[in-house]
């Protein structure tokens, strides 16, 4: 059976004068998948998202959006929606008017779905307020509502969680998860690793215009890389001894013994072994969590490695 892809990019390059923004980028996004795009500033994320939205064409390589090859700017399918560099809103219009104008642009028929879209992103209460007074988080949510109106099959979002408070974040995450469950493919960039980890099943890490990792999040943790884990137990001294005796693991210096927190460093297999040993030793484990998320650790390691080349 053929694999259905919403995005298929091979060897994409894009330059702005002498600056190489994208250098041989490959990207696969499956239907119904939420794909994260992370990378330091200037890595080429926004440029790649712009290409997916059809704002420009790549200088080299091949890009297919929803199964259709992209040959010129704005040639991408009408099933693509989203925003880069923040949502485009007109401050002199209310939230509802912004959406109505956008809806009228695509379909001259009766305006349906506007109230539903506002409700989904939690902006129903401010639907008739002008957007010039909206916070960044509210603007982000309204941008998402605008994208929802078009019933996209590929949604491209640049930093959708920027400026969101916990409630707004919950709304946005809920909407994105529902969209993916309904078969919409999502590509989102973010500097917030917790967002990416919470939402995305696959991730692509970009550094200086190149892909340094692309695949499932679980694969990142399984990569041959040391991880720092925070261990809180009922008996810190015993836990320290057990950790010191565990092969492939070492206790990180500078641990504050008075709090009973132990930080250990090792690969996934050694960490698993530590848990088994602690249980066998009768040490009750209260907390066992990464100090830095696997994604963030991988991001830092990979991007620093790329920058060092």
């Amino acid at each position, binding site marked *: 059976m053929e694999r259905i892809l919403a995005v298929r990019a091979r060897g994409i390059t894009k330059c702005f004068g002498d600056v190489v923004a994208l250098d041989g980028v490959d990207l696969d996004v499956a239907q119904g998948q939420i794909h994260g795009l992370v990378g330091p500033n200037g890595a080429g994320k926004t440029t790649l998202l712009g290409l997916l939205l059809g*704002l420009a064409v790549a200088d080299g390589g091949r890009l297919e959006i929803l*199964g*259709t090859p992209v040959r010129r700017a*704005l040639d991408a399918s*009408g099933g693509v929606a989203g925003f880069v560099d923040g949502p485009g809103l*007109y401050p002199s219009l209310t939230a509802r*008017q912004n959406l109505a104008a*956008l809806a009228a*642009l*695509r379909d001259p028929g009766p305006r349906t779905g506007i109230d539903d879209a506002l409700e989904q992103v939690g902006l129903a209460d401010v639907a008739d307020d002008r957007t010039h007074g909206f916070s960044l988080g509210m603007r982000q949510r309204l941008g998402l509502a605008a994208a929802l109106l078009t019933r996209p099959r590929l949604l491209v979002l640049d930093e959708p969680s920027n400026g969101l408070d916990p409630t707004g974040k919950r709304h946005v995450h809920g909407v994105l998860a529902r969209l993916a469950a309904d078969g919409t493919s999502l590509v989102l960039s973010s500097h917030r690793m917790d967002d990416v980890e919470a939402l995305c099943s696959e991730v692509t890490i970009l550094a200086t215009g190149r892909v340094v990792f692309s695949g499932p999040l679980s694969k990142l943790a399984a990569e041959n890389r040391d991880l720092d884990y925070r261990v809180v137990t009922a008996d810190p001294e015993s836990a320290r001894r057990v950790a010191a005796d565990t092969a492939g693991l070492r206790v990180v210096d500078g641990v504050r013994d008075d709090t009973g927190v132990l930080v250990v460093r090792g690969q996934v297999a050694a960490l698993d072994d530590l848990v088994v040993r602690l249980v066998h030793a009768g040490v009750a484990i209260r907390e066992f969590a990464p100090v830095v998320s696997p994604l963030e650790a991988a991001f830092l390691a990979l991007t620093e490695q790329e920058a060092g080349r």
Partner: protein
Amino acid sequence: MTATIDRAHAAARRGPVARAYRFELVKLVSQWRIRLLALACWIAPALFVAAVSRQSTLPVDTLFGRWMHATGWAGSLVMLGFAGTWALPLLMSLVAGDVFAAEDRLGTWRHLLVAVRSPRRIFAAKTLASLTVILLLVAGLAVSSAAGGILAVGNQPLVGLDGHLLAAPDAAGRVLLAWVCVLAPTLALAGIGLLGSVALVRSPMGLLLPVLLALALQLAQMLPLPVAVRLALPGYTFIAWTGLFTSPAQPGPLLIGIAVSVVWAATATALAYLLFLRRDFTNPAHDGPGRRAVTLGVLPLAALVAATVAVVAAAGATGPGIEQDKVQRSVATAFSHLYRLQTAQLNRPDVTEAQLAATAACNKGGGRLDARGPGNDWRCVVTWHLPGIEAAGTAVYQLDITPDGRFMADGDGPKEVNGYFLVRTPTGDAPNPLWQFDGNVALLPAAPKG
């Protein structure tokens, strides 16, 4: 291998220009600035004309200003003169000069492109939407000023620029036609506004371009330029509409001015279109085409001026256009018409222009200078005849002729004729139409008859 996902859906849903036009119009009309401008254009001229028409002192330095007590139509023409100098360039800056730059300021270009999916359609929609707003504003200026004048003074005949009397319906038609004619240079400034808005992006220079160009054109019209250069500039119609208020009308300069303005509007809009299509909307460093704007924007327009000058000059429009015989003819004609007006005021037996057989002998600089070109040192002696009186009457006028052919004649003769600003009529003192009057010299050579 990638499967194709519903290729029927993959075709972009491209809405017609009408939808994008409506979207742009909604955005423009929702701006407070545009709403205030519309309100100002539809209300302020009426208030201004009504207020000035009721004052004892009239704006006699402005064309038709001295007739604001006599007819409501004069107020609309005073407003037209002001609009051509200040209001219309400013409106073009605020509407056309900002229509593209506003998207840069708001950071909405990418959003708009994704929604509309066609730069061509966006350009067409923005251009049409700004044109609609411009027409609405100009219509407001015209209707409001005319309404203010009619309500405050009344629908009386208008004294033309050569002193002949235009019946009220004729005056109304010509006033309307004059406003329609100035749409051409207004659109030329709008085209420049679009070009500035596209080429200079967020720079304030883009917004100011129509105003700066209009100012430069006005300065140029104040210089003693050859008539071919004068007519080749896109703002000349702001002056040439006065040719509608002479008898016979002077359509030549007006038609040339309109043609030049239309070519400017089309060229500037086409250049803006080309620059817009070349823009890369994914480039975060884009801040206008910079030097390319000079190459693609300024040079073609400069070439257009040069070509127009050559064409107009080849058609025979050379020199300053202000010649002694034209001045003499113009002064004598205006004097004849106004003499009849004064005769009617004084309740004397009517005389015709033919009976008066007025002539003017004009010189410049007391006869020491070549009698051609602009200046405030023109002096004319007008001679006329009355039926049954053997002696000819004479009156002297000092003329200030501006380089665009307009003049103001200041009477210096017998108090009963042109030496005093009032005349004693059977119903009391009234403004003396022969004391000071405005006129204009046709800059183009008269068309050969037959």
